[in-house]
């Protein structure tokens, strides 16, 4: 074991550092054991960065990732349930980190968005800046798809990457968490236990794991969640090309309790993501029965979904997702509201890994160096709630929808240099930019002026066509 494990970092409390590991400072040392609960993006990104950073300071860690599920299963079983949208900016960012998503993972590059409203549709092309997005399957594809193995699963790929970085994947369900002389102890369902110097909890909000912490980590409160609905339709390739194309279709419909819905093409499948309040069968039926939705399918006939699930999403950050020798990342901690959960998992996981290697694993270390990254996302989410409230208003007011449609359609038609509404909508739908940026862009002086003009024009000047690029659905 090396006597000096690492060099001091600028942010170090030097006195604590020189007090050594026997002092009050909690830090990992050569040979430390790290447990990661959950092998989704948050857990695997964390592992990847942790092992890379540790290697850079010549520290050998032994990492166990607890992931009982197999992402090579088809259908919802092997899936980590989400819409499967990765923004191009994240794909690029991952590439700079050495994570190159193979082409087999990316089912379809999304080139445009089609916004569907009762007053008409408008296609929003990729903005001038490179902002393409990729559609992926988190698992091994829907129920009736051709099995593709780990090479086709986003999560499967990341887990293999983490394993290749030197982590051990433990295929066991975690049953119990306890403290063993101040160190977290993980007990699996087969009764075996292991004690770690650090535990990273990346178990999301769709498992029973968060319940295990009520007694052992009372300061942590699991995030508030919302039930969503995701399903997959299988369509003939030519029908997909004709009706959907390389576009994501977004719906702003005046349906009570509906927050947001999108259709995303992936290979021979079409994924429906539906966000709302108290998503239930009645809401799903109303949505699927809407003429704007049916018009996206050949002859207005919607096939029976081949796969579906009701996953939960994080809608309000967990309270204090850290403690001595423990940290919560991904959906189990703080995540981006509604969009780009993978991107926020990446940022939070990296912040956690940096904190662990460069600072320490005490509650105070996480508060100082990890929590700010979480807080940025959390603050952005507060802005998001404002924006979604505005889009909810648009959803409910027909005259607003006319204005938005007209403004966007005109921007798209003219190829205007400043596409105010288009960019706002693009960023809002794709999650390509922080919500704060979306909001600040709508403060551009031209934006309200243009919107006002379009509101008037769209609602009063009825002699002219309303500028819809595509015919409204009948």
């Amino acid at each position, binding site marked *: 074991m090396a006597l000096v494990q690492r060099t001091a970092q600028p942010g170090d409390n030097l006195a604590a550092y020189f007090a050594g590991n026997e002092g009050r400072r909690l830090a990992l040392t050569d040979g430390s054991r790290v447990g990661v609960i959950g092998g989704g993006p948050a857990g695997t990104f964390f592992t990847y960065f942790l092992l890379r950073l540790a290697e850079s300071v010549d520290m050998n860690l032994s990492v166990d990732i607890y992931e*009982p*599920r197999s992402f090579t*299963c088809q*259908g*919802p*079983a092997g899936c980590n*349930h989400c819409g499967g949208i990765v923004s191009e900016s994240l794909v690029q960012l991952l590439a700079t980190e050495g994570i190159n998503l193979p082409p087999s993972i990316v089912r379809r590059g999304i080139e445009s968005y089609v916004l569907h409203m009762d007053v008409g549709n408008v296609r929003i092309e990729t903005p001038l800046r490179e902002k393409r997005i990729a559609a992926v399957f988190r698992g091994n594809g829907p*129920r009736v798809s051709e099995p593709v193995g780990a090479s086709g699963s986003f999560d499967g790929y990341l887990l293999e990457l983490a394993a290749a970085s030197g982590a051990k994947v433990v295929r066991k*369900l975690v049953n119990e968490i306890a403290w063993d002389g101040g160190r977290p102890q993980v007990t699996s*369902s*087969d*009764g075996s236990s292991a004690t770690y110097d650090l535990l990273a909890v990346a178990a999301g909000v*769709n*498992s*029973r794991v968060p319940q295990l912490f009520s007694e052992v980590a009372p300061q942590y409160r699991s995030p508030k969640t919302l039930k969503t609905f995701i*399903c997959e339709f299988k369509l003939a390739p030519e029908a997909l090309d004709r009706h959907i194309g390389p576009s994501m279709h977004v719906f702003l419909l005046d349906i009570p309790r509906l927050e947001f819905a999108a259709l995303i093409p992936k290979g021979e499948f079409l994924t429906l993501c539906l966000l709302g309040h108290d998503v239930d*069968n009645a809401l*799903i*039926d109303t949505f*699927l*029965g809407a003429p704007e939705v*049916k018009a996206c399918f050949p002859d207005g006939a*919607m*096939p*029976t*979904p*081949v796969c*579906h*699930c*009701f*996953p*939960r999403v994080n809608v309000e950050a967990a309270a204090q997702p850290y403690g001595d020798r423990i940290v919560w990342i991904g959906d189990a901690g703080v995540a981006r509201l509604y969009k780009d959960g993978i991107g926020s998992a990446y940022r939070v996981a990296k912040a956690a890994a940096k904190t662990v290697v460069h600072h320490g694993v005490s509650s105070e270390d996480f508060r100082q160096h990890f929590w700010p990254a979480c807080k940025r996302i959390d603050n952005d989410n507060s802005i998001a709630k404002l924006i979604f409230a505005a889009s909810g208003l648009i959803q409910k007011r027909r005259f607003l929808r006319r204005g938005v449609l007209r403004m966007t359609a005109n921007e798209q038609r003219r190829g205007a240099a400043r596409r105010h509404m288009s960019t706002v909508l693009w960023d809002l739908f794709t999650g390509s930019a922080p919500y704060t940026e979306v909001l600040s862009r709508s403060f551009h002086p031209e934006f309200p002026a243009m919107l006002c003009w379009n509101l008037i024009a769209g609602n009063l000047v009825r002699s002219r066509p309303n500028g819809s690029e595509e015919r409204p659905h009948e």
Partner: protein
Amino acid sequence: MKTASFQEVLARPKQSEQLPPCGAGCATGADIRGWIGVIAQRRKLGLWDAEAFSRAWRMVTNVNPFPATLGRICPHPCEAGCNRAGKDGAVAINALERFLGDWGLRQGLELERLEIGEKPESIGVIGAGPAGLSFAYQMARRGYRVTVYERNAKPGGMLQYGIPEYRLPERILAAEIQKILALGMELKLGTGIGREVSVRELKAQHDILFLGIGALRARMLGIPGEDGGSVWTGTEYLASVNRGEPPALGAEVIVVGGGNTAIDAARTARRSGARVTLLYRRTRQEMPAIAAEVEDALAEGVTLTFLAAPVRIGRTGAEVSSVAVQQMQLGDPDASGRRKPVAVSGSEYELPASALIAAVSQEPDWEGLDELAPGAPWIRSAQHGRIDDALWAGGDALGLGIAGLAIANGRRAAEALHARLRNRELRIPPARIPIAGDAIKSDFHCDRARAVAPEISVDDRLTAPEAEVRGTIGEAQFLEEVERCFSCGLCFGCEQCFMYCNGGGFSRLEEPTPGTYFALKLDACEGCRKCIELCPCGYLTAEPMG
């Protein structure tokens, strides 16, 4: 407005226990999945190894008081349908049963009594074979006074006299019989009915009689030359050897037949040092004998000649000198569904022979029992072996079968009789179709090779004729083998449903029992079907939503 199309794909789980193929195949009617499960799941159930073993032993002996015996000799039809067979080999159920039986003997476990208090009826059992002893066991453990009459010097019937020592050591059988006797019953050995005791006396002494007389009269071949010395039936020959009076066979023994008795006789004769040729009129495929035993016979140097039937025994003076053999070919299927052997004309040839053992067929021997014979040679009985209120039967006398079946006959007769005598309802589980193989997700389990029992070398077998050929698997092997069971059709606590359910529709039970690990909360079910698709044992089935 389009009606809800997505509703069609919703389904909620139903916990439905289904019949596993092993249970469907077991002649004794044992809950094989159940007793394997208690051991395989002992940690989840909070049981120590010994607790789990003895609980499993009780489950087995509830229907079969001979686990160490059947663990050695049963042709294990339970393994034939095992869903693991298609993956990496059927679970070695027979080897597991043997280990458990031996363990029960070693631990001195006692058979369980079911009812206390003596019942007024006196029960007489004729024949201490597997059927009679099983019947006597089930009656005695329910508090009846039982007397067993056996015309031979030792109890066990065919288990004692029909199975060679190298397959079933006498001490094992004797120890298991001892456990039955320990429940309290009278065993009268060397007591033939119509010989030492008359049927009249028997009827005067007992309210109920059970016929477990077996099928001990072996049929001869009906060919010229079979009358006279050096020609035996298979059962006669094996019984003589088991009594310690092996007949002199000479150097060239011909055994006729394709069943277990023929193979046992051939292997026993081989151990006397003779060259042995077994003639069977059909092919290897149609042989009813246990395949592994046939392999053993070959390994030990028995020559198997298929599609061959003896037509004449040649004698030089009184001594057997040759057997004329007719070559056969397979024709159309007969009543048993097997293709009927037909003679090929002009194909006769001669084999040198010093003795012939005919193990072709057997039938009940009614000598001294004529008054009781309800249809000879085979007994015709109503359900559960009932002939009339006071006369019941079971075992080979109803038709030839394996020992496990005779044990089941004895038990079912006892259960039915007990219900009748005590005016209780006889609960018979309804006949069910075993769970379909495609309901089992064998991919859930990793490949694991089937346990192989130790064997002694061929040289050792021939130099020590009584040495047991196959050994009992070790405890470590046993514990690994139970893990291979898929638990077809019953929850084994794999936690897949619990783990994947988004809605929290499964809650862990505080005190699980085999098959019940989770409670279903259908209110929380969102119909995604994940649990149903993942359940590796087929326990969760789909129910329409709503």
